[in-house]
């Protein structure tokens, strides 16, 4: 149902590296679940509204009032790599 290439494409979208040994089992397990999920394709759902939220109300908005921000050292405290007062990452241009 879902083949090796699809697995690799989806893994790329999800930014997930898969080792060679992980690809085939992943394809098999996803296919099994998707086969089960496919049962909903038999239901007649034309004209049925989709449910995104079960809460039957609309969003409460936030007043535009400032709240204190975190000190920089707290914001950066858990970062794997820090540089120039910011979060350091491998350059996207690299």
């Amino acid at each position: 149902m879902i083949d090796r290439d699809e697995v690799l494409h989806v893994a790329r979208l999800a930014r997930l590296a898969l080792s060679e040994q992980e690809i085939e089992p992943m394809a098999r397990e996803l296919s099994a679940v998707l086969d089960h999920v496919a049962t909903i394709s038999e239901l007649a759902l034309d004209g049925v509204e989709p449910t995104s939220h079960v809460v039957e109300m609309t969003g409460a908005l936030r007043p535009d009032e400032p709240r204190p921000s975190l000190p920089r050292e707290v914001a950066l405290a858990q970062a794997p790599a820090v540089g120039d007062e910011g979060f350091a990452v491998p350059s996207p241009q690299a």
Partner: protein
Amino acid sequence: MSESSATGAFEPVIGLEIHVQLATATKMFCGCELSFGEPPNTRTCAVCLGLPGSLPVVNARAVHFGLMIGLALGSELAPRSVFHRKNYFYPDLPKGYQISQYDEPLCIGGKLDDVRIHRVHLEEDAAKLTHVGESGRIHGSDASVVDFNRGGTPLAEIVTEPDIRTAEQASGWLKLLRTTLRSLGVSDVNMEEGSLRCDANISLRPTGTDELGVKTELKNMNSFRFIERGIKAEIERQRKIIEGGDWVVQETLHFDPNSGAISSLRSKEEAHDYRYFPEPDLLPVAISQEMIDAARADMTELPADRAARLQRELTLSPESAQQLAFRAGLADFFEAALAVQVDVSAQTLANWVTVELAGRLDDGDPAEAQVTPRALAELAGMVASKQISVGAGRQVLDKLVAHGGSDPAAIVEAEGLAAIGGGDELAEIVAAALAANADAAERVRAGNEKAIGPIIGAVMRETKGRADGAEVTKLVNEQLGI
């Protein structure tokens, strides 16, 4: 306006995508204050850093500003507006998705001047990613650093229909949009500071047809000049490709203002699959009549309406009315000057503002100009009442713009620019000019009116432009017995 002839058999089809940073106090989904050059990462919290467990809550004023924009553009305001997640990975995007809007935007349709609006929606800005090059701190040769101060700033994205045909029209229309948004007070709309950002979708089609060619998206044009140059360059590039018998490929392009070169931009997620789905952390926003009324109540007069009013109430020419209303601050200056009771027609005063003053300020803001509305009004009055000549008036305005000062009369006094009235003094100067230009005088007497030019020129030189042209002509004719 129409220079599409430049592309001959092909007609450019241009649509704009404008991102406007909203001038709220806090970010789109958290209480952090907006950042204006604060030190990096000092305006962040659990929400705008995308910390685990944090949740967004919509800023009510951002919605309010969005509705004001929709009203200003004549959009239909959606009764129910839904936020979606736009999923992609990039270091300036802390959650791995941008909270934006997809198929249920805040405002649908609309029109500004001659360009139709497709939609207006709200979203959050990305953080600032700075390339710092070699870094020992992290493995890998090249490093960038993320500052999340800007991340989460409220944005209104305004998308036009492809109704624009030339680069000039694009920048001209964008200026009108900027003036409109500024008059609403919803944004600083400053391109250099990035609070107004514009991308252009550009394609060519055989002139006269209405098919749509393959379009490219031109990004990062951060000034009005670059927008014109960028769009021109892209139109040229596409024309060469098509005339060379090749195909334009759909891609995102980057315009380099320095080199004027256009290069293909590496897209954020090469497989463009944003996997939009309704943001489960935010319920749909219901737009109530109260919210719409509140937005309308905060609206000031819009440039287009103002132009119509100036034309209607003051019988200004349509050109003058638009020049005043569509440029930020100019109409305010004009109406302030008009309020100073001097004996000069509204149209004449408008000309002084749109031609003489605007010409001397080029793109500057009249509000910041040295010259005050009262000073310009008095100056216009002195010229109208012939106390000084038009030429002298221009000289006085030069001084007012350069050095300020609120009293044109004083400058006239100091510079001795007062008009030389009828009297003997001017008559003598005219006589001298006739003597010095005898042959010209002959031709004038012989009926060649054009020949009077050199004579008047001589008089003006002698009087440093203080003489009134009409008065001089009168005296010339008298002395030549015509």
